[in-house]
């Protein structure tokens, strides 16, 4: 088991290395660097000035040495101030080292955000915290509801409850966040006036009024999927011999479901819920942009839209980490929950 986890962690590190290299390559393409230079300098700058801005801020160093600097395996070189000829900080708003030092992600330095004029860490981690709160409430809403729907539907296959709930969950998987968000806003904010169509104020304090719509929108897409998986697993369990035995020895249907079926039926949904996190990540981006909630997704869009290199790298590192760690947890957890599975 331990060697399995270690091997998986090794693959994870390799995957993260490859992915950050790809992201690094793509955001450092020449047109993207030009865009960054244009957005960072004054209007109407000539091509030479743009080029000199890029050189002065160290964007024209060798690609691999820059990647190494970001990673922290190559010492970060300070840039030379053209006016004084002395080594200087790349950006005044964050304290880059003035002497060559190892200062990259491995050392915990995520770099500077050119868009927000601050260090990446001070922007990214509060945003992650805000998204964490959102995710927490989404899970609190999504998991019980979807498990309940799945169990109710799967307990008597083919019944009217089953068919109604199945079609409802298919409908919810057909509703991406940008669709349900619009529909919910129209119903609850525009027509009924019950809820706030914007969650911008939620950064200062979460209330039922400003936070329900984002949570609802984000939960609805996942509910259908998890419910369908739970239903499939429940249907399978209900056909097992031990369920028949329990019924034949005279237990009531309710207690068979609760005592015998439920536990076995919940193994598969656990994996699905864990694998749902990467999907939630995309949903988070849409929902945060739609409801103007200042979280991780909002930061990612701002970083991508402005080609904020270090911030975008930080965002991709975090999201790739979340995807891979949930995969690992789902594999390990599955082995723990189901004693018949042995990982090799």
């Amino acid at each position: 088991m331990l060697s399995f986890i270690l091997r998986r962690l090794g693959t994870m590190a390799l995957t993260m290395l490859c992915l950050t290299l790809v992201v690094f390559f793509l955001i450092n393409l020449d047109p993207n660097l030009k865009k960054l230079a244009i957005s960072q300098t004054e209007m109407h700058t000539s091509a030479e000035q743009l080029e000199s801005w890029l050189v002065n801020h160290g964007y024209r160093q060798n690609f691999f040495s820059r990647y190494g600097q970001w990673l922290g395996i190559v010492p970060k070189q300070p840039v030379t101030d053209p006016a004084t000829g002395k080594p200087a900080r790349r950006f005044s708003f964050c304290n880059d080292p003035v002497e060559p030092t190892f200062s990259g992600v491995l050392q915990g330095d995520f770099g500077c955000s050119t868009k927000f004029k601050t260090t990446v860490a001070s922007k990214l981690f509060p945003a992650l915290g805000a998204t964490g709160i959102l995710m927490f409430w989404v899970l609190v809403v999504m998991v019980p509801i979807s498990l309940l729907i799945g169990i109710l539907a799967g307990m008597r296959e083919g019944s009217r409850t089953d068919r109604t709930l199945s079609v409802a969950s298919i409908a919810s998987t057909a509703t991406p966040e940008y669709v349900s968000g619009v529909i919910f806003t129209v119903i609850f904010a525009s027509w009924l006036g019950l809820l706030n169509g914007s969650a911008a104020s939620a950064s200062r304090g979460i209330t039922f009024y400003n936070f329900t719509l984002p949570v609802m929108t984000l939960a609805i897409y996942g509910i259908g999927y998890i419910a369908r998986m739970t239903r499939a697993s429940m249907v399978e369990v209900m056909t097992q011999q031990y369920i028949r035995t329990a019924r034949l020895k005279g237990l009531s249907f309710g207690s068979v479901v609760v005592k015998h079926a439920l536990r076995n039926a919940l193994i598969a949904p656990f994996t699905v819920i864990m694998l749902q996190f990467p999907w939630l990540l995309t949903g988070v981006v849409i929902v945060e942009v739609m409801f103007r909630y200042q979280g991780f997704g909002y930061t990612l869009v701002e970083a991508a839209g402005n080609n904020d290199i270090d911030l975008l790298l930080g965002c991709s590192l975090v999201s790739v980490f979340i995807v891979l760690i949930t995969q690992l947890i789902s594999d390990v957890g599955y082995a723990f929950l189901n004693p018949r599975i042995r990982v090799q």
Partner: protein
Amino acid sequence: MQLEYIGAFDVVLGVLARFWPVWIALVLVMGASFVYKKRLGLYGQLFDSSVGIVGVGICLFWLFTAIFASTISPFNPLVQIPIMKDALPGAVEPQSGLVYLFGGDKLARDVFSRMVYGSQIVLIIAPAATGFALMVGITLGLPAGYYGGRIDTVLSFLANLVLAFPVILLFYLLVTPGIMETPIPYAMAGLFFLFPIIFFSVLFWTRYKKRPDRLYILLGLTLIIGGWVYSGLVFDADPFRIIHIDPNQLNIFVAVVFASSPGVFRIVRGLVMDIKTRDYVAAAQTRGESPWYIMLWEILPNARGPLIVDACLRIGYTTILLGTLGYFGLGLAPESPDWGTAIKDASRLLRSFIHPALPPTIALMSFVLGLNLLADSLREQSMKD
């Protein structure tokens, strides 16, 4: 000048009337399918359940809407008629006397016509991209599952690499105006569009290599048609000027194929690993058939059930992806009538006007719902066998 309005009941009637070619085609096709359902195999079996009928109905509805878009829509989806700015549903356009059935958007374009034309974009790109993703996934998944070992390790690592990307980040990196100046989208298009040609060439080669008369015709056709489409799509150099794709459309097309082919790869790989332990595969191996013959002519046909179901779901998922691209304003032209862009434009103004937001959202939702119902019913039917 004051606009004239027609009542809500007339709006509903008007919408139903505008869709007349769709209703006729729908009745003809559904009626014929229902009568001959015994002879139509898997497709015919769909008509045995109400879920299947609804699914087929919705999908055909949008298919015919896309085909007859120019007849159905009363206005050009891009033309702005200033007086109709933010007009409410049912407003009569004074010059032509035609009705803005679902009102006008903030740029004074007809919401109804835009929704109808939006179906064209979705119904061209989503199935085509899914088709290419299937080709890529199958061509790579077959050897990975069949041979296992190092090929499998490398290909699975690459697939997991792409799958570990959050889709939205992938799109922000791959679908930007800047990347069009680099050769990357064209190189990726060149790579992906090669797969169908390889797939069909190998398919025919393994089957007919002992029968040159058939082989040369089929191979020749594959190479000519494939090369023609390839030159049109990748180099935009179709000698007949029929196949043409805008650079930004090529870009989203490639990004969507890139995002969804690892999923197909995983499914195909899993299916192949399951099927290759069957007796008929062992029999073919004993006969001395080549590995690619076994993969393409023994394993693949037996994996078709789950693949068809997955393809249906995947078209729906691709539609959602296209909507996401439109919602973030990536790739598609800002005035493009596709549903995602329309939702983006309308959702910014929800506080003042809600009518431009509803038609595209309901259209997108209903199309994906139709595909999901279709997939669900296909799955039920193929489980019965």
